[in-house]
Structure formats: structure tokens, C-alpha cells
């Protein structure tokens, strides 16, 4: 392979990895706090993209206002979802909560199909993201450069929130021990709600960036990225934000590079993540950066 093709693939891998990382963080934060796979997270990602789409097309907003509005809506939706589908089941058996999550996911997808139509829509072109940039013989869409940068900024803000503010302290407390945190006068419900809000916001950023890079929207677009990003979170060590980022990048790079180097495996692309997941779960069940926990009887 030529060096220029390699760099081309590397930028693709990095931007895909960044997108995976952004979505994986949402999974990991929710799992860290509630020990729950938020199956609907991929659909929140899809909604983020659609909100932006309708704000730009139907409401004719300038794109940057549209994006802010879409992100706000996505975060609010995530908080609402927690209120309706997860909060009533907080003391229920795990299987019930998981079924509720799956139900919520299918509900959002099907409402999406009814409201948005099953036919794919294409996002109108935004010049800032759509220009082709040349570096020597490597040419790429500008959005592929924006994505890693935006991800880095978002990540820095997130780490500051989690490790540098009182709210973040509350989040970490709730994720360590929910009941003890309540006894320490932490508003558990508010903290959980906020966690969902932040996670959904990141999914929204991911969704909008995703449609900038792959400008096709359909109501089921969140299913595969959702599953893969959950896998990324597990690979990195679920409950651990740095782990989710690592897992996301790892998955993005592996996916692009295997297809680039072994084109005959292209058809199996969607299976890589699952194979990787199973290997990691068998070798290091707590994930790459996770801590092994012994269960006391």
C-alpha cells in the first residue's frame, strides 16, 4: 500500500474512532451510575442527527444555531427518557430494566420510521465541513479533520466536569455507591438525570458529526453504531471514561484498517466489533482499563 493511501485511511480511522468514542462515553457513564445498558443510546444518536436535519431544512436556521438547538433537544430527550423508562424501574430486577431499555429503543426507532419516514434523507451540504483539503497527495473532507479536534475539546470539557466540579464529584459518588451518596445529601435523581443529559448531548454531537461525514439519515442509523459503541465501552472497561475513548479509537482503527489491508473481508466488517468483544470478554472480562472486581457472597 502506498504511504498516501495509508494516511488517507488513518484519517478515516481517526475520525470514525472519535465518533465511536463520543457515543461510547454515553454508554459508559450511564452504566457506571446505573449498571444499565442504555439500549436506546444509539437511537438518541439518531435523534440528534434528525433534530439537526429538521432545524436546518424545515426551520431554515443557520447551521450553527441549528446544531446548538439540536444538541439541547437531544440532551433534554435523554433526560426525559430516563424519567419515563428507567426511573420507575430503579428497584426492579435487572432483566426488567433491560427489557424496558430494549422496548424504549424499538419505540424510538418505530416512532422515527412513522414520523421521519423510512426513506433515507440526505443532509444539506455545509461548505465549512464539505470542502476537500489536500495535504500533498492526501486529500480528505475537512470534516474528517474537524471531528478529532471537536472530540478532543468535548473530552477535555467532560473530564473537567467529572473531575473538577462538584457535580462531577456527585456523579462519581453516585456511581461508587448510590445509597451512600444519598445519605451524603447528594440529590441522586438529579445527578442521574444530568448524567443522561450529558451522555445524550455527546451522542448528539456524535450524531451531527456522523451525518456531516456520512450525509445519509435514516431512522435505523443508530442501531449499528449504538451496538458497536457499547462494545467499545466494554472493551475499554465499562464505567471508565478514558476506557471508552480508548475502546472507541481502537474499534474505529481496527475496522478501517482491516478493510483497507484485507479488502476481501469487507463483507464481514460489522462482525469485527463482536469478535473483538468476545475475545476481550474472555481474556480480560473487566475491559482493558477496567478494574477486576471480586464479588462477595
Amino acid at each position, binding site marked *: 500500500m502506498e504511504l498516501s493511501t495509508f494516511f488517507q485511511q488513518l484519517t478515516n480511522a481517526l475520525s470514525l474512532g472519535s465518533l465511536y468514542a463520543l457515543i461510547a462515553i454515553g454508554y459508559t457513564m450511564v452504566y457506571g451510575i446505573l449498571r444499565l445498558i442504555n439500549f436506546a443510546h444509539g437511537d438518541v444518536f439518531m435523534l440528534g442527527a434528525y433534530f439537526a436535519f429538521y432545524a436546518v431544512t424545515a426551520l431554515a436556521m443557520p447551521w450553527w444555531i441549528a446544531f446548538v438547538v439540536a444538541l439541547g433537544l437531544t440532551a433534554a430527550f435523554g433526560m426525559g427518557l430516563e424519567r419515563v423508562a428507567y426511573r420507575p424501574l430503579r428497584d426492579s430486577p435487572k432483566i426488567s430494566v433491560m427489557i424496558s431499555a430494549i422496548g424504549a429503543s424499538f419505540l424510538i426507532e418505530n416512532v422515527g420510521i412513522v414520523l421521519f419516514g423510512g426513506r433515507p434523507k440526505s443532509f444539506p451540504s455545509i461548505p465549512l465541513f464539505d470542502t476537500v483539503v489536500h495535504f500533498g497527495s492526501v486529500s480528505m473532507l475537512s470534516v474528517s479533520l474537524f471531528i478529532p479536534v471537536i472530540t478532543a475539546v468535548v473530552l477535555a470539557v467532560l473530564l473537567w466536569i467529572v473531575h473538577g466540579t462538584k457535580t462531577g464529584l456527585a456523579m462519581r459518588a453516585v456511581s461508587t455507591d448510590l445509597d451512600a451518596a444519598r445519605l451524603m445529601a447528594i440529590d441522586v435523581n438529579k445527578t442521574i438525570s444530568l448524567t443522561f443529559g450529558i451522555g445524550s448531548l455527546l451522542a448528539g454531537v456524535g450524531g451531527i458529526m456522523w451525518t456531516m461525514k456520512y450525509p445519509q439519515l435514516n431512522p435505523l442509523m443508530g442501531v449499528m453504531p449504538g451496538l458497536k459503541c457499547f462494545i467499545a465501552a466494554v472493551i475499554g472497561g465499562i464505567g471508565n471514561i478514558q476506557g471508552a475513548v480508548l475502546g472507541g479509537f481502537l474499534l474505529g482503527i481496527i475496522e478501517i484498517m482491516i478493510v483497507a489491508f484485507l479488502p476481501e473481508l469487507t463483507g464481514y466488517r460489522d*462482525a469485527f466489533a*463482536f469478535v473483538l468483544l468476545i475475545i476481550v470478554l474472555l481474556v480480560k472480562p473487566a475491559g482493558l482499563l477496567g478494574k477486576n472486581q471480586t464479588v462477595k457472597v
Partner: protein
Amino acid sequence: MKRNTVLTIAGLLVFVTAVGLADAVLGRFTVRILNLSAIYIILALSLNLLNGFTGLFSLGHAGFMAVGAYVSALLTMSPTQKEMNFFLEPIVPILAKIQLPFPIALIIAGLCAALAAVLIGVPALRLRDDYLAIATLGFAEIIRVIITNIQSVSNGAQGLKAIPKFSTTWVVWICAAIAVVFMLALVRSSYGRTMKAVRDDEIAAEAMGIDVFKVKSTSFVISSFMAGIGGALLGHLITTIDPKMFTLMLTFNILLIVVLGGNGSITGSVLGAIIVTVLMEALRFLDMPMNLLFFKTNGLPGLRMVIFSILLMIVVLYRQRGLMGNKEFSWDGVLGIFRRNKSAGNGGRP
């Protein structure tokens, strides 16, 4: 003879007559829906065995169904039909000539699904709860991706068409009846009890000397065998299969039946399967153009699934036990209801 035995025999006679007369009396469309619900009974029971009786949350059912459906279809199609199907790439020579009688193919289909379950269960069953769910989901997805890609065996994304229509009313309902009887016997046996023990408290079960891993894998393999049979029957009923059929959506439908009927209730799964399948068809009008009093919708495909998703959410949020909870049908129970009503009718006196 005891009263309950008489009632059971009477019930069986009614069942046999109903199945025997169904083709003659009911329209083709109705019969097809009823047969579909028989297949869903088998599938729901097999998922319930895992989910309700062993406490293993698996989302891999569609994968095992796919294995069963493809194996049975490939073993029963005639060489000419195969040639017509495989126009992009010829079928592998071993499969091209082979054609087995339907019952043997059906059993082999189940065994292949069970074999897949053995291979998958060994690594996956070491995981718990949500990890198990996501790993089984992953395996199902891998199976689907493989089927899509092995063009010369499965005909890839084109799928298989003109599968012989062996799933007649008798076949599917006898299979469903066998499944029900088998499950009843299983959950009452000592095997069934160990499964429930593992479900209720894994650590306690282990302390009592139960080989937890063995119980889990037995349950997983049996369940997959049934799923394979169900998938094969489904293929022979609708006569076309393709990899897109066997997504998480299919597993979700079965899960809906199990949860709606009651996790851990055989009666619940049977009732749930019939109710959900019939409702799925009955609500088909929702996807069609409608003319309501004030506004006109021009066909909203997907509205039906919205209703079902909402139904599932309501059941999970407000009535977690589902229709039956973990109770089973019994003649005493049914007669008890009538008696209670009667005694209520005459002022509560017995």
C-alpha cells in the same frame, strides 16, 4: 377417572378436531396466521426456557433460528430449485445433490442450531446478565454476517426462494404440542428444578452442589434446538428466507411474547404467542392509508410496531408479571374462577 383427567382428554379432543377442521373451515389467510402463532409458541417457549426458567438473558435467538431455517431449507429443496436459486454463484457440490425427507431435515436443523449453541455457549455462558445479552446478540449478528457472505452455501443476501411448503397445519401444531408437553415435563423434572434454582440464586445453587455451568449450557442448548426447529418451520411456512429476516427485531418479537405472557409461565408463552401474532395481523390496517373522521393519513408504515413497543413498555413499567405471572393453567384454577363468580352471584354463600 378423575375429573381433571376427563377434562384434559376432552381438551385434547377439541384441540385435535380444531386442527383437523381448520384447513377446511377457515380461510387460507386465517389458517396461515394460526400456523404462524403455533411456530411462535415454539419460539416463545424456547426463549422462556432461558429467560424465565434459567434466568439467562439471551438476545441471540434470531441467530439460532437462522441456522435452523437455512439448514432445513437447503436439505429439503430439490436440486433444480437450488440451481434456480443460486444464479450468482453455483452452490457447493455437496449440497447441490442432497435432498432429505422433511422430518429428518427438521431434526438435523435443530441439531445444527444446538451445535452452534454448544460452540457459542462455552465462551458466552461464563458471562452474566447484560454481558451475556450483548455477547449472544453479538454471536447472532456474526451468524447473520457469515450467512450473508457465504454466497455458495447460503446464496448470500438474495436468500432462498421457493422453499418447499412443508409447514402444514398438522405439522406446526403437532410440533407446538410436543414443545408444550416437553416443557411441562422438563420444568417439573429435577433438571427443571435445578434450572429454577440457578435462576433464583446462582451462588446458593452452587453451594447445594449444582453444576451451574452445566445446567446453564444444557438449558442454552435445548433452547437453541427448539429455536432451530422453530426457524426451520418458519422458513417452510413463508417459503422464502433471507439474512435480513433474522435481525434483533425478530428476537424482540419473541421477547415481547415472553414478557407479555409472563416470564416463567408456559401457559403465558402459549397465550402470548397467539395474542401477539393475531394482533400483529389484526393491526395491519394501521400501516395502511386511513380515513379518520377529520384527517386522512396516507399510510404510516411502522405504526403497528409503535403500538407494540408501547405495549411492551406498559407491561414492563406497570405489570411486570405479564399476563400470567409465573402461574400455569390448571383445571382447578379455571373452575375456581367460575365457582367464585357463582358464589358471588348468590350473595357470597357457598
